[in-house]
């Protein structure tokens, strides 16, 4: 059974049971599906930026403002009331951000490797849940459609594979997304890394990377840059010097030989003095 089939069956089982809890997906990038009454309300994955990262990286909220919102909300992971009350985002806009992040996370999970799925009770409160849960069937269909669309592009890109560099010398109009990609593509970052860096969806960035590679705006170096390594002048040494070795034990003396006494040799040669 493929990883995708395993996930689809596990989510379908959660839906039938009306699970309120979590489905943990092991693999790379893997992730956690949060469910309420069998419907998916949030997905956390290292493979795609969640709503918090999208808001922070896009500059809509600063790190300090976010920390203040979390304190104000009594330590909640997702300070939705404060975000709207302070005017950082509108309620409708926030719902759109959460819904798009949810779909993007599902795309990232199925684009990667799925090793196993395990359902369990709810752990921590889910971050940025959508108000009305989504059917897992619809979410998986949408993610599969995106994956298939990506494969048909002239230069198919995987979110975690290509690490492109900009091609120097291009002068022409660029969209804001393309400018951001060119500014941050350094031969080390994948589409997933660039999505986090620029605060955009991983699918959006992956598609744009594929187009820019096909158009010659980006190129993939044949091999990664070598990692410079140098040996310290005095070598790598222990911080604490090892304890000195204990002195070797005294060799035991012969037990059955006579002990010499001072003057013994003189008495043997010359006889005992009287």
């Amino acid at each position, binding site marked *: 059974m493929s990883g995708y089939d395993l996930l689809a069956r596990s989510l379908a089982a959660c839906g039938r049971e009306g699970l309120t809890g979590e489905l943990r997906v092991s693999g790379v990038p893997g992730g956690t599906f949060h469910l309420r009454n069998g419907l998916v309300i949030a997905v956390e994955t290292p493979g795609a930026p969640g709503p918090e990262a999208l808001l922070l990286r896009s500059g809509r909220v600063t790190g300090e403002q976010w920390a203040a919102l979390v304190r104000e909300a009594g330590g909640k992971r997702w300070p939705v009331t404060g975000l709207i009350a302070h005017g950082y985002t509108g309620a409708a806009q926030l719902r759109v951000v959460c819904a798009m992040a949810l779909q993007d996370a599902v795309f990232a999970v199925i684009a990667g490797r799925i090793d196993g799925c395990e359902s369990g009770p709810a752990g921590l409160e889910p971050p940025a849940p959508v108000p009305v849960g989504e059917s897992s069937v619809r979410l998986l269909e949408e993610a599969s459609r995106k994956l298939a669309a990506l494969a048909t592009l002239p230069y198919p890109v995987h979110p975690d594979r290509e690490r492109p560099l900009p091609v120097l010398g291009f002068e022409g109009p660029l969209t804001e997304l393309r400018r951001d990609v060119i500014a941050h593509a350094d031969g080390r970052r994948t589409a997933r*890394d660039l999505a986090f860096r620029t605060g955009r969806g991983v699918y959006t960035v992956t598609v744009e990377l594929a187009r820019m590679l096909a158009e010659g705006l980006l190129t993939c170096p044949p091999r990664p840059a070598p990692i410079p*390594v140098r040996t310290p002048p005095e070598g790598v040494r222990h911080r604490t010097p090892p304890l000195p070795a204990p002195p070797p034990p005294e060799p035991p003396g012969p037990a059955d030989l006579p002990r010499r006494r001072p003057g013994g040799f003189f008495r043997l040669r010359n006889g005992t003095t009287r």
Partner: protein
Amino acid sequence: MDHEALALEMRGLREQVTGITDTAVAAADGLLIAADTADSIDPEGLAALAAAGLGLARRTAQATARGALRQTVTYGSHGCAAFYAVGDTALMIVLGDEGMDVDRLHLATQPALDRIGSILMSRTAEGV
């Protein structure tokens, strides 16, 4: 020291854990040995900070009877910086973005630390 083996360990860790952005290895005194870092990072300065940070954390663990130091992690709104001691000879630095699963990082790092420690202490035929 086998330079190629050390570079492979560092690159392998970055590929194994989603979200790692940079790695570096330094001697325990903060002298940089290897850096797989973006141009925006000053690896020499980072190595010195890691040595100082681990030293402070080790003394804090001793002063508060918290046992042997495992690692230090600095969390920011755009990711985290983890410092690990490689035995008592060296240290490893891992930087990750906000998507990195820190628990998974700790699990993946432990076997890598042992191997990196062996690589650093091994001597080649030339004695380097």
